[in-house]
């Protein structure tokens, strides 16, 4: 892929996609993801003012303040960002929603809303910055902590982890990926594809908490991630206005076009032969992770560009609802007469 130009297709520079200064701990995985989000939106040439940055509560949920200053941000309440995203998507279908959540925010308090967001296919790039702990409340285990993982204070996690990718696929999500803040290159491509995707694009990202969960014995540490990550493919995204810069070698390469004209491409790595359009294969791949704790597969696990989004399901006007003129919304005098008559 060619080196990123100094300006994107809108003529904007990377700095136009930056946010405020981070107040997270130095080295926190979340900051890496923030920077990758900046790159992705820049490279995708999204107009910042058309972006809604949404989150719940947590260190991860603070991050929307650290990218895209020109976008509208909403740091809401703990675990309930999906409801906000859904409401915003209904009000203005032209907005690009990016939601940043944490494993506590999503898998603990937010589980109900997460499930129903997936079921509805709410249009949002939904990131879980997964560190296995509640960072902001100082390191308690979250529901994605692995059984047997050891806390900083020495306690061992007794419960099995919730696998958000499996859950997302089972619930019909059409864009399910797993990545690692230590693999910016992969994450960037996934993010770009997710931005081009129309429904819920769920990305579960191992994002180590350097302060509370980065020690030996933790299965969410940076070293653990580095030591175990196995990308299941090389992948990239080519937006509709760009020429593919890679040579597809045919054979095992796969190209998946998205409705907007962009293309996700995938090249197998090693023994893996994963076609992300294969739902069952995706679940099996994830099961490997589940059954063999030494494995940490990353990549786009499942991709189904065809699923209808919430707004189409609901048959909404193409024109955003929020700003429709009153004439379109308020029935006529005659209609009211009709209604009144029917009640006489």
């Amino acid at each position: 892929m060619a080196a990123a130009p100094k300006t994107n297709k809108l003529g904007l520079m990377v700095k136009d996609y930056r946010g405020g200064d981070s107040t997270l701990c130095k080295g926190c995985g979340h900051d890496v993801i923030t920077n990758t989000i900046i790159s992705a939106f820049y490279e995708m040439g999204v107009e910042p003012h058309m972006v809604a940055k949404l989150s719940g509560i947590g260190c991860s949920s603070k991050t929307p303040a650290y990218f895209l200053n020109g976008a509208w941000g909403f740091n809401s309440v703990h675990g309930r960002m999906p409801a906000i995203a859904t409401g915003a998507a209904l009000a203005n279908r032209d907005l690009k929603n990016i939601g940043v959540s944490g494993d506590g925010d999503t898998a603990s308090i937010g589980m109900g809303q997460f499930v129903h967001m997936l079921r509805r296919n709410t249009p949002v790039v939904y990131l879980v910055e997964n560190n296995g702990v509640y960072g902001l409340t100082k390191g308690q285990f979250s529901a994605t902590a692995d059984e047997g993982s050891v806390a900083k204070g020495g306690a061992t996690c007794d419960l099995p982890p919730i696998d958000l990718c499996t859950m997302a696929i089972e619930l019909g999500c059409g864009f399910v990926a797993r990545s690692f803040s230590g693999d910016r290159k992969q994450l960037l491509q996934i993010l770009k594809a997710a931005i081009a995707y129309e429904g819920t694009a769920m990305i579960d990202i191992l994002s180590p908490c350097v302060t509370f969960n980065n020690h030996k014995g933790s299965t969410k540490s940076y070293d653990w991630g580095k030591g175990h990550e196995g990308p299941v493919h090389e992948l990239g995204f080519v937006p509709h206005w760009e020429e593919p810069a890679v040579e597809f070698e045919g054979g095992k390469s796969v190209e998946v076009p998205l409705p907007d004209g962009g293309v996700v491409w995938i090249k197998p790595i090693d023994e893996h032969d994963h076609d992300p359009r294969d739902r069952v294969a995706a679940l099996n791949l994830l099961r490997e992770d589940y059954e063999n704790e030494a494995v940490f597969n990353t990549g786009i696990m499942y991709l189904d560009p065809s699923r209808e989004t919430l707004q189409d399901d609901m048959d909404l006007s193409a024109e955003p609802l929020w700003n429709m003129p009153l004439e379109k919304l308020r029935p006529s005098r005659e209609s009211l007469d009709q209604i009144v008559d029917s009640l006489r």
Partner: protein
Amino acid sequence: MSEPSTAPDSAATAHPEPIVNRLSIQIATVNGSGSQTANNTLLRAIFQMGIPVSGKNLFPSNIAGLPTWFTIRANADGYTARRSEVDVLVCMNAQTSREDVAGVPPGATVVYEESLKLDTLRDDLDFYPVPFAKLVREVCPVVSLRRLVVNMLYVGVVAHLLDIELAEIEKALQKAFATKPKALDLNIDAVKAGLAWAEENITTQSRFRVQRMDKTAGKVLVDGNYATALGALFAGVTVAAWYPITPSSSVTESLIELADRYRVDPETGKRNIAIIQAEDELAAIGNVIGAAWAGARAMTSTSGPGISLMSEFIGLGYYAEIPAVIVNVQRTGPSTGLPTRTMQGDVMFCAYNSHGDTRHPCIYPANIEEAYEFGRKAFDIAERYQTPVFVLTDLDLGMNLWMADPFEYPEGGIDRGKVLDQAGLAAMEDWGRYKDVDGDGIPYRSIPGTPGGKGAYFTRGSGHDEYAVYSEDGDVYAGNVDRLKRKIQGSADYLPQPIADDRGSKVGIIAYGTSEAAVAEARDQLRGEHGLETDYLRLRAFPFPASVQQWIEAHDRVYVVEQNRDGQMRNLMRIELPEISVKLDSIRHYTGMPLDARTVTDAVVAAEANAEGAN
């Protein structure tokens, strides 16, 4: 003129002069038996005869098989409150019939299934046994339909006894079965069969009668939830999120029905409204807050348990200043309480909902006209003050049928409050999302997606300064919440103002919401029966404007009438108007039944006697 054979020869059956257009009919059935259509037919027919009516459905919290009662009050003077005395009882439920009969006053008319043999229970009633079971077999050959059809038989019998006009019954049925001609015929035939049987077998008419008059011309008959939905429709609501809960479900269900007709673009076939059934109330209010933040006029409808679940988001809406319309159709709490009974039980919980210092505008519609008007205005209030607003209605208003003047077409546009578009943003120097530019505490907001490179800001439930930047500074915090307090207090003059009906009395009554009907009647009773003239102030909103205190000051004693145990509105007034709070006496009704005039009258009379004694 021969008595029905089983009727005892008592004083009550001496049929003194008929009582016309002043009666309550109660029909006791089991729910799920389809009696609702029959009952509405009776109600509507009387209404069409020009006689003021109201209908109250007393139903259990299950779907089928339990006792249910429907009460129709017809009153020439237009009183529409519940009246606890029953004049005409129709006993179709064996399970409750003995108790039902025991509960009516002497002289009442009782229609019942013959085999129940109720006439032996009392000798001061007019009993009309009817062989419903036998008759229905004759009228309706299809066994599975008999359960429904039997109801039309009592419509016919009651019509005969009370002089309800058959033509009006037919008209009412035509309305009910407009799209089902076959069912229509079957039902009309059943009514006629009941009527024919009665004509043949009942020779004495009930002492209670109806007679055509002209007091309902032009009026509509509708439930409050429909009116509220209609108000929202005309307000231009674009996003409604809900989770079903009795007694609020029909707010959004009515909106769905209306939207199917009036919000589908005729050209594209696409919808100009999003109505989303959320997975629970936390999500529903989250949808509303998300949508309103993104510029939609957004609402939810719920009842008590839903409000409890929404509390966290409501606090966010208050502090981050996001409009939201929350229709709370109150039912009997606490907890699940009596889910199919009415109450004004969430007055306090809504006014100061959520943790921390909060305060929310609340409006209290009292009748159909206001259910419609406030359902519309709530959006203006929410957007003008950029804050969650409660429309506090209740089961009695929301789910019962009330007579009303036809809905008026709203003149003028809508008030979207201080929203800056691209030009507005460009024109404003040094815009800050939470800056008090005009001194009224209300800042200017921008909507996500506004182009031009200005107006983007970061919304949060945590501390923030005038520019919406994160802040933990204590003075910034205090300044911000002081502004919020000012802002909400400022809404008092914009909200629906209290309505006074003063007649120069030193005794005042304050009420709100559905206590209205009973209080209006009670004041007439107080005047007529006790020579006690009263002044009356009907509150329509919280926070209170200054006029409330002034009104109270002008009176010696003030009774606050409400439908809850703790005197919640009285308590709000104690907080907000401490100088005059000692003047407030409290009349509370909290059985879950709609308030009746007699309860109010008796309480005022007793309290006044005390007050006199003390003088």
